[in-house]
């Protein structure tokens, strides 16, 4: 029986090394071929998970504790599918983008392959030290991608991102050290029951705080969001799309795993309420700041800061004693994760096309874009629909589930926050759309863009919309394991 698990990690690593050997800026076709094969493997793996349930895989045949164990369940399947479904159109988009604007490509292709390898390994990891290794690989690849643009702003943003991500990983590794020193194992399957049955020790609490703080830094939750807008707003559009859509979600996935699988006996409702409060602050503050921006890509980057806040609302909602409310909260959070990844990738891709055409990254210069690039503007609007939470998009399903959970759990404060967040998202999306329908600014000449640049973005936005119709399959996959 063919096992796709090792190939999901090996194939992007091999592609990365091969594309590195082909030289600067080349290797796009190889990455595209590799990514198509990986998408097929991911679909095979997802079907295996649905039919056979969650399972373990020992790399090289050596089991834990000396070997590395991998574990796939429903949530892993969703994350792997999301990664490849978002990455494939983005790779097509990136090939077209860098053929129109060759500067800033650098070693984009090898770094993207290493990024994908790190993410696949991260989603399948079953012990906390392997998670550390994949987190570092992910961080270094992401920093390399941000710095590829080369000018002073992106390089400073990349250094800031690197230092923040190293601080986060350092805190996480300290937590691993404390857990290993106290319990003698790093495997999640061993540590979980051990933490649940033995008496709660101060070392375990300290380890939990350190690991979660490190991961919160990497997920850019308010007030740790300061590194994200310069890094995502200053990078080339394909890089911003990859980072905002996928890399942030990887550390959030880890917070989800550790919170519910490992630290379940340790976490209190107060800690969950704190995370929810920070998420609410992120939604409000990020949306307000997004509205005040004058640069298009910075607006979309602040929108990421705001939408990440919705994900953290699921923690207080899941502490509710009513079982239906808690299940809706998890489903809503995961749907928000998937819908936002698709929509944000589409939005950054559309913003990239508009900036490429206008020549400068300024919202005030977008006048007349509606007649020049109608498909791209439509893509931006479709992505905005998911961010606002309008039916029938995937974002609407996510927010509906979260609001439903809040109402049945009796936590009304979060409902107000979510509705306010939706209104503020509408404000900044319509700010851009209104500007694009105004007559062109004097002296601006729009450059023509390749058709291939517009279609991948449109496909991503359409998928986020269609997610609203087919959310049942996603939620079924989540239920496995």
């Amino acid at each position: 029986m063919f096992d796709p698990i090792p190939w999901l990690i090996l194939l992007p690593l091999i592609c990365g090394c091969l594309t590195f050997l082909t030289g600067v800026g080349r290797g796009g076709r190889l990455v595209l071929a590799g990514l198509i094969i990986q998408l097929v493997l991911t679909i095979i793996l997802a079907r295996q998970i649905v039919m056979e349930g969650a399972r373990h895989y020992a790399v090289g045949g050596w089991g834990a504790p000396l070997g590395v164990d991998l574990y796939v369940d429903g949530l892993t399947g969703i994350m792997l599918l999301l990664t490849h479904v978002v990455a494939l159109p983005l790779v097509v988009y990136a090939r077209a983008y860098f053929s129109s604007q060759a500067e800033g490509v650098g070693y984009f292709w090898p770094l993207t392959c290493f990024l994908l390898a790190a993410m696949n390994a991260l989603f399948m990891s079953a012990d906390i030290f392997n998670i550390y290794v994949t987190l570092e690989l992910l961080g270094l690849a992401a920093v390399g991608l941000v710095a590829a643009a080369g000018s002073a702003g992106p390089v400073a943003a990349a250094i800031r991102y690197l230092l923040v991500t190293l601080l986060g990983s350092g805190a996480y590794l300290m937590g691993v050290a404390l857990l290993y020193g106290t319990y003698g194992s790093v495997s999640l399957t061993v540590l979980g029951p051990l933490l649940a049955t033995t008496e709660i020790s101060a070392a375990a609490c300290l380890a939990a705080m350190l690991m979660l703080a490190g991961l919160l830094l990497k997920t850019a939750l308010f007030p740790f969001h300061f590194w994200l807008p310069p890094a995502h707003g200053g990078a080339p559009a394909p890089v911003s799309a990859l980072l905002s859509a996928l890399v942030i979600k990887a550390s959030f996935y880890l917070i989800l795993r550790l919170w519910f699988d490992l630290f379940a006996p340790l976490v209190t409702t107060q800690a969950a309420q704190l995370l929810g409060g920070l998420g609410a602050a992120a939604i409000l503050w990020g949306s307000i700041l997004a509205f005040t921006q004058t640069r298009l890509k910075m607006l979309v980057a602040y929108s990421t800061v705001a939408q990440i806040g919705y994900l953290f609302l699921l923690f207080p909602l899941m502490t509710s004693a009513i079982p239906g409310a808690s299940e809706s909260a998890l489903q809503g959070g995961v749907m928000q994760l998937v819908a936002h990844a698709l929509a944000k990738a589409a939005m950054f891709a559309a913003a990239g096309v508009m900036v490429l055409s206008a020549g400068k990254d300024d919202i005030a210069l977008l006048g007349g874009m509606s007649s020049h690039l109608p498909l791209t503007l439509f893509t931006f609007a479709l992505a905005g629909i998911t961010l606002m939470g309008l039916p029938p998009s995937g974002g609407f399903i996510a927010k509906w589930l979260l609001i439903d959970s809040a109402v049945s759990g009796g936590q009304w404060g979060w409902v107000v926050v979510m509705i306010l967040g939706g209104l503020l998202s509408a404000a900044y999306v319509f700010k851009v759309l209104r500007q694009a329908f105004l007559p062109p600014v004097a002296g601006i000449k729009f450059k023509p863009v390749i058709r291939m640049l517009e279609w991948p973005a449109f496909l991503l936005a359409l998928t986020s919309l269609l997610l609203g119709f087919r959310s049942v399959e996603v939620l079924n996959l989540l239920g496995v394991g």
Partner: protein
Amino acid sequence: MSGALIYACAGAVLFVSGVAGLILLPHLLRKILAFNIMGSGVFLVLVGLGQRDGTPDPVPQAMVLTGIVVAVAATALALALVRRLLSLTGKIQFPEEPEGAGRFWKNKQ
């Protein structure tokens, strides 16, 4: 206090000073040095706490070796980026932020 526990306490002290340096110092090279001190602190805790009954445990030592390799790679990347920033701006510090949250507060004045 056993020998192993002394290493672990020293590691904790190094970790805290490294984190403080990473956050507070403005000079980028010193931030990178602080990150390395933080890493050394974590490795000391890993080896110090990992000893059970005085016999050396190979698993945390393997983890520390992996950690050292990762730290070296990360330091190399950080130094390369700082050199590039120096050649572009002439300074080894983060440039002033005119946009983002800074603009929001400036516009309020």
